[in-house]
């Protein structure tokens, strides 16, 4: 009964420590570490703990197999967690960076994506001419009625056909997307069957090199340039809206209009102006909103998946760590009992076992995070995006993710070390000395 009570208290302490670890920022862990070092060096009990720890660490090479269970188990958890979250983060960032607050996208009412939206010529003209839309030096609205079609091209990785988004741009597109840089070649000529290819589309799909021909709407189109916009548009092929519309027999119809607002605050006025026009039913949102919405579902799915997998792996690793540390305590029973008989208190013993486990856990966390970082930072992947075509994105292993991974490692180490540490401290000295 008493031991059950003890276990319960230990469990609560462990849970509290893990919760603190999860909530507090990384620098508070650094402060705790600094305080611990100060205690180890300055006080009598601390110096005792330090010397017990040194003995424990110096015997580590003799139990390399057992120690590696802790390190590798935790490295696995952290590696998988960081890699999956880096995927979610990369996808989310790619889409979110595509939008901003100054530009608004107008879709047919009820459509959530461009490819599902449609509007006729009069509508696109009326939207572009709303008073909230910024105008360029020549007095033309900075607006781009755009056409989105999907073409099939073989992927370099699998050779299988995959969907690639082809965007037909309107006149104001370049003034809208000032972040776009040409990496090679030149812009397409309006009216001609010419395309420029986003740098990610170029690395992902066959037949997209400069000068090659792509079949769109049954006609050959020439690739004349490569562009980099550092966002979702990098997965697209761009051409002149009118030329693409005629290839796909879309006439004057377009999917969406993107406009630059004179001021981000004018969005509500812009929306009201569109809503009051009886000729059409359309909805406007900032491009930041629009692209963020598109990343939500997949990002959330990957996050849930990643966390679930990591939690299950963490349970496995935790029990591995418990086993190892109990065994470590057991093999050192006589040594610990001797120390206690010499007058060492329980505290230093507890601390030394904990420190040993946390060091192993930290090593595992660092190895796992480093492997995930080395393999997956800037790793390119692609998935089917909202416009029914491939969105190519890079995994992003950010410092926050790495710190989170290390927190998981420390949490597993903490729980895995606490129970064996308390067992070591509560060992009856006489029994321990008699142990063979």
């Amino acid at each position, binding site marked *: 009964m008493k031991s059950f009570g003890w276990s319960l208290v230990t469990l609560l302490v462990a849970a509290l420590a893990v919760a603190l670890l999860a909530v507090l920022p990384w620098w508070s862990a650094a402060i705790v570490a600094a305080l611990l070092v100060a205690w180890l060096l300055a006080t009598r009990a601390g110096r005792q703990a330090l010397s017990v720890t040194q003995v424990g660490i110096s015997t580590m090479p003799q139990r390399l197999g057992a120690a590696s269970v802790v390190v590798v188990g935790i490295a696995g958890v952290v590696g998988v967690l960081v890699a999956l979250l880096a995927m979610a983060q990369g996808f989310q960032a790619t889409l979110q960076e595509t939008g901003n607050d100054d530009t608004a996208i107008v879709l047919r009412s009820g459509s959530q994506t461009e490819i599902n939206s449609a509007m006729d010529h009069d509508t696109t003209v009326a939207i572009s001419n709303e008073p909230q839309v910024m105008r360029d030096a020549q007095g033309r609205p900075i607006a781009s009625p755009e056409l989105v079609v999907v073409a099939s091209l073989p992927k370099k990785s699998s050779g299988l056909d995959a969907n690639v988004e082809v965007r037909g741009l309107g006149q104001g597109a370049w003034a809208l997307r000032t972040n776009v840089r040409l990496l090679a070649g030149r812009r397409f000529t309006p009216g001609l069957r010419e395309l420029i290819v986003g740098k990610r589309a170029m690395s992902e799909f066959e037949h997209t090199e400069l000068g090659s021909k792509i079949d769109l709407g049954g006609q050959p189109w020439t690739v004349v340039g490569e562009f980099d916009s550092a966002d979702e548009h990098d997965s697209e092929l761009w051409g002149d809206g009118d030329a693409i519309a005629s290839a796909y027999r879309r006439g004057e119809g377009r999917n969406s209009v993107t406009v630059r607002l004179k001021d981000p605050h004018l969005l509500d006025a812009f929306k009201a102006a569109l809503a009051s026009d009886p000729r059409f039913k359309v909805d406007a949102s900032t491009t930041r909103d629009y692209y963020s919405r598109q990343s939500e579902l997949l990002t959330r799915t990957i996050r849930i998946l990643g966390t679930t997998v990591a939690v299950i792996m963490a349970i496995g690793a935790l029990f591995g760590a418990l086993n190892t540390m109990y065994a470590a305590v057991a093999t050192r029973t006589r040594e610990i009992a001797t120390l206690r008989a010499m007058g060492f208190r329980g505290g230093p013993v507890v601390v030394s076992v904990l420190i040993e486990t946390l060091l192993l856990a930290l090593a595992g966390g660092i190895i796992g995070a480093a492997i995930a970082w080395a393999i997956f930072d800037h790793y390119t992947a692609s998935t*089917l995006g909202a416009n029914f075509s491939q969105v190519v994105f890079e995994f992003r292993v950010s410092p926050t993710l790495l710190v989170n991974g290390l927190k998981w490692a420390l949490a597993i180490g903490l729980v895995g070390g606490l129970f064996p540490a308390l067992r070591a401290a509560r060992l009856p000295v006489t029994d321990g000395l008699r142990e063979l």
Partner: protein
Amino acid sequence: MKYLHLVWSTLFRRKTRTIFTIVSVIAAFLLFGLLDSVRGAFANAGHNVAGANRLITMSKQSLVVALPTSLLMRIQAVPGVKTVTYANWFGGYYQDPKNQLVTEAVSNNYFDLFPEFGLSAAELRAFHSTRTGAIAGASLAERFHWKVGDKIPIQATIFPQKGGSNTWTLDLVGIYHVADPNLKAEEGALFFNWDYFDQAAQFGGGTAGWYIDRVAQPKDADRVAHAIDALSANSDHETKTQSEDAFTAAFVSQFADIGLIVGSIMGAVFFTLILLTGNTMAQAVRERIPELAILKTIGFSNRSVLSLVLAESVLLLAIGGAVGLAISGIAVSGIRAKLGPQIPMLPVGGAAWLRAVALMIAIGLVVGALPARRGMQLRIVDALSGR
């Protein structure tokens, strides 16, 4: 078998250690069950025996580009083609944009090509005679509590009606079931009359999104596919015809390389597991060297000592693995019940158990090998004297 008791009692000689190890094994196989179920759902998509004689004809440019309905008669005339039908993607959502639907407008002979849906003659008659008639998959109907006879308002995301309304009200006249548990995801679709779509849609009518062709002989499929594509060669609507399997496989591969992701995670998990159980077994044998020596003294052969240790490690994996996989089975059916069959997870069935058992035995043998060899090679005199 007669040594089972002996193996069992040595396994639980150190209860805490064995139980901790088993918990780790449970976690690993729980993960195996869950991930294998996801992987299976993607790998299995489209592997449908009933679909072996179905071809899908779509625009060569992309699935999004529609084809003229005039192709129907010409495909019908291709030798080897038994029946042809066509469908248009409609999409839409029910009540909330979060409830996106898989809705297709289908021509009236569509269900003749899908006998596995098991629709009754009465339901088919009602579908043909009701202009706004619709047929839903059983799990979709269950999810939104639809019953035959209900009026279902669908919000269009692509196709408004003439007059601009986004609301399409359909009359549910039938519900179809898919018997194969691995293909339950196909129960998530909603079908309505192409004629209604054609007449009521503001645009998009008069075209077919894709054709589905049933060939008389599956072995003729390739020849028929080429013949169909030849019909429109060099026209402005060239087609690409492929088997249902190939079509689905190409589509699924666009989402992500699921195999690679699952494979990498499983690799990390089982590598850790081998190390972990290997360490436990090594400890267990190290502690028991004198006991093993006694076994040998009383006449156990080297080989039986070897098999005892191997049996112990396989048993360790088998207990944990069976519990873990059983938990994953419960978890998967719970998730499927809660989120509906459109979630890409297969039930944990016989094939998954077979793979898991093979893994348990293989890992058990691998981690038991070194300790077992040590037990086999020990010299009785040395072991008994503690050298």
